């Protein structure tokens, strides 16, 4: 590892600078003036993307706590994609809900910076710090619709449970420090490996507590309770952002901690994560079937997708590790796309959030209906879309690692999930609309973001090799 000075933090510094610029711009905005604050964020993301490209394969480290290894950089890249797409689909939500632009963009950028830090941090304390940076920003974003009780409720629930999980996480760090005498992941790994034969109770407790902390953040069952409420109550563009960004950051850190530092204890935690993965997939899909609100349904769907990601983590082989990365990217573009369609269809008078509200969408908005279909089919795991390749890759990892039953649960739950994704498709195409032309016009920026997402989804489904190879190259340096 090269002591590269500050270079490892350049990506998040770019985003943070953009966030500060957004805040400053908001402060100097005269009342009623429309400022292009969104594009400021875009500039930050372009900077982050460029620095990711420049840092690639260099293994730079800063302060001994932030490592820009390829794994972290790949995740940072995913977060850039998440950030750019989220910015692009935000406009309709901001207009309709009359959200404060400056705050919104600044918080989103700060959250992204925290996510990037979380993905590249190599010290438990720094991971915690990053977790708090992103969480605080996202709590506020969730509650940004100040006049809406459901938004406030969502933010409050999310905050309370999040704080609770942070406590678990912090306890876990403390115990780990007590056992190993360090918070650096590399040192922890070395110490544990040296005496892996007989893990003490304290050691197991530290692993368990950290597991709970991560499980909260990736909304794994049974720590998923906050997810549907928070996702439903938050402004839809925020839901798109946090259902993908938070998950990407948390899974990156999860993989780093459990597959690198706690790797010697895998025998102890793998059965536990196996159970959580199975429960998450089953719970997410089965409860998803019963939803009548599109946002809640997508919330349960994203819980289920967390389960598939956990399958990749349990598998713990090279395929599984790269599957985490590939899955995160595919899931991110697909899910932002799906939530993006929901966001542009919302109307000031009516939320248009019931599944039945989508009746006849094909007749009125054929383009949006086709885009939504692509996203839903990809979430359901149909070829030739990215979701299929991602799921195949995860199940491939599970089969190669000998977790056949987990793979069986995975494929069967994904059949069940097809049922509820298709409910929306049925509505859009096969059910006549009782009251057409209720949907608002689609802003150009959001439409572009949705089209780009759809193109990426198809690209990842048909020509996945380049990204797969990139993901495989990304895991070589740390595990």
């Amino acid at each position, binding site marked *: 590892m090269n002591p590269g000075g500050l270079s490892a933090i350049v990506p998040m510094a770019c985003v943070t600078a953009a966030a500060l610029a957004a805040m400053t711009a908001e402060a100097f905005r005269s009342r009623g003036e429309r400022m292009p604050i969104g594009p400021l964020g875009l500039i930050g993301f372009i900077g982050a993307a460029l620095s990711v490209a420049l840092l690639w394969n260099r293994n730079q480290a800063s302060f001994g706590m932030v490592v820009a290894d390829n794994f972290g950089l790949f995740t940072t890249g995913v977060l850039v994609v998440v950030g750019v797409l989220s910015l692009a689909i935000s406009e309709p939500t901001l207009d309709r809900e009359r959200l404060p632009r400056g705050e919104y963009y600044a918080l989103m950028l700060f959250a992204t910076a925290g996510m990037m830090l979380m993905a590249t941090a190599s010290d438990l304390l720094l991971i915690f710090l990053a977790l708090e940076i992103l969480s605080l920003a996202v709590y506020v974003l969730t509650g940004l619709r100040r006049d809406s009780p459901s938004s406030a409720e969502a933010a409050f629930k999310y905050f309370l449970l999040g704080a609770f999980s942070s406590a678990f996480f912090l306890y876990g760090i403390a115990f780990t420090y007590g056992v190993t005498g360090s918070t650096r992941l590399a040192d922890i790994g070395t110490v544990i490996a040296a005496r892996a034969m007989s893990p003490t109770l304290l050691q197991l407790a530290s692993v368990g507590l950290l597991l709970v902390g991560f499980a909260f953040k990736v909304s794994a069952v049974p720590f998923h309770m906050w997810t549907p409420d928070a996702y439903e109550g938050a402004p839809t563009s925020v839901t798109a952002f946090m259902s993908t960004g938070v998950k990407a950051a948390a899974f990156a850190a999860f993989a780093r901690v459990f597959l690198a530092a706690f790797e010697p204890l895998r025998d102890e935690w793998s059965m536990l994560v196996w159970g959580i993965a199975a429960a998450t997939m089953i719970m997410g899909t089965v409860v998803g079937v019963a939803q009548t609100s599109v946002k809640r349904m997508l919330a349960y769907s994203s819980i289920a997708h967390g389960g598939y990601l956990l399958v990749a983590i349990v598998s713990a082989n090279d395929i599984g590790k790269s599957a985490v990365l590939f899955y995160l990217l595919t899931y991110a573009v697909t899910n932002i796309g799906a939530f993006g369609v929901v966001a542009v269809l919302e109307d000031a008078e009516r939320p248009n959030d019931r599944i039945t509200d989508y009746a006849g969408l094909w007749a009125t908005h054929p383009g949006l209906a086709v885009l939504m279909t692509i996203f839903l*089919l990809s979430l359901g795991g*149909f*070829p*030739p879309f990215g979701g*299929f390749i991602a799921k*195949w890759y995860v*199940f*491939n990892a599970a*089969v*190669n690692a000998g977790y*056949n039953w987990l*793979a*069986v649960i995975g*494929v*069967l739950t*994904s*059949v069940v999930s*097809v*049922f509820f994704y*298709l409910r929306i498709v*049925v509505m859009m*195409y*096969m*059910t006549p609309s009782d009251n057409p032309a209720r949907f608002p016009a689609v802003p150009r920026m959001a439409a572009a973001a949705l089209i780009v997402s759809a193109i990426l989804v198809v690209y990842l489904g048909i020509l*996945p*090799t380049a990204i*797969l*190879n990139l993901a*495989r190259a990304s895991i070589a340096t740390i595990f």
Partner: protein
Amino acid sequence: MMTFPILSAIVALPALGAALLLLIRDEHNEGLIRKTALVVSVLVFAETVLLAWQFNPASADFQFVERHAWIPVFGISYAVGVDGISLWLVVLTGFLTPIALLSAWESIHRKTRAFCMMVLLLESAMIGVFVSIDLFLFYVFWDAMLIPMYFLIGIWGYERRIYAAVKFILYTMAGSVLMLLAILGVAYLSSTTPGGYTFDLLRLYELSVPANLQFWFFLAFALAFAIKVPLFPFHTWLPDAHVEAPTAGSVILAGVLLKMGTYGLVRFAFPLFPVAAAYFAPYLAALAVIGIVYGALVAMVQPDMKKLVAYSSVSHLGFVVLGIAAMNTQGVQGAVYQMLNHGVSTGGLFLIVGMLSDRRHTRLIAEYGGLKKVMPRLVAAFFIVTLSSIGLPGLNGFVGEFLILLGAFAWNPRFAAIAATGVVLSATYMLWMFQRVNYGPVTNDQNASLPDLRPREWLQLVPIIVMAVLMGVLPNVFLRPIAPAVERMLDLVHSEAPSQIRAELR
């Protein structure tokens, strides 16, 4: 020198045609849209005929093979090729698609462009299934094919279309995802061989899979294919899907889609897992025979013509599975032949039922009667197709069923004996239906002035009848390329001695 990639061209052309339809500016210019789609599908058919023309019938190997690395880390490639087993299925797909498009000319007037696009995309995916010689690619086409069919049933179907469409897709998926896992498992086994990770069918044929794993893998494959065929008791999606689908959808569903199940058994399940295949063959045959009799009996009591034809498919495809399970030359050759026959004759039956229901908007047998006097030409075509379906000597159905029964008898006379009753039963329900619809006095006044065959309907029925006669009179033309490929498949299946296998499994 690079040869012309004819298989890729056949797979790609319908999809490109679908994209071309998007370029037509005026969505309501139905005539132009239909004509474009029809021209594309006829061109595809021409390509498939060219393929059959250039095919070397003496060779058992895959021909026109193309390979391009796709996901090289796992040995996944875009690999396509045809042998005698898949050749005619590709031609059949090319043959039925223009007919299906023609059948929609009068009956589909809503969202015509999307309809034509779905039919063409479906054609691409179906041909892709038949020509893939890479398991991963096969699965991609296999699953991708569900989407256009789902829309065809769900958007343009009859009253209970949504239920039927969702049932169709969920049933099929439930079976096929387990097959995906089995595919992953087989490929994983290949990763320890000298050649490394591969999904290539030809290399996996040579893999010796441990007997206990074969058991599970075969079950997973067989379940996916049994649902698709559909084999009793996995057939319940079929009557719904068939009845609710528009005529074009039914024609393709019966003509091509169901063949994917039986094709999968011949191409994948049996040769890849010969040990388990030998073990399970009697069970499959038992289900097939139950399906033959059960399908026929249920068909007999249907008041709805479309449902009757749907159940007759369950019965007829039971024959195909029986022939495959027999695992001898006659049985498998007959099975492959019968797949084609069923595609032609059942496709024809659905067309005729569609024509009747376009005229009267009902498919109930009781609503008709005495049509012979009103529409002599349509009834004549109906008669020929009916005879072809029940296997009258001289028409196509006879050859396939005869070969299958011959093969089944050599293997297990009891199965053959029960299956033979199916032949009688099929004559009973088909002729009885024919009689009730076409003979006797015109009981319903609405039937008195129905128009006879229109020119466009001639265009649909004449090819079907010509094929039915050709395949009945000149079976050798069609069987010649099939024979070597079947022998090769049987060599793979019998490569391990069955007695030793049973011992291993117990």
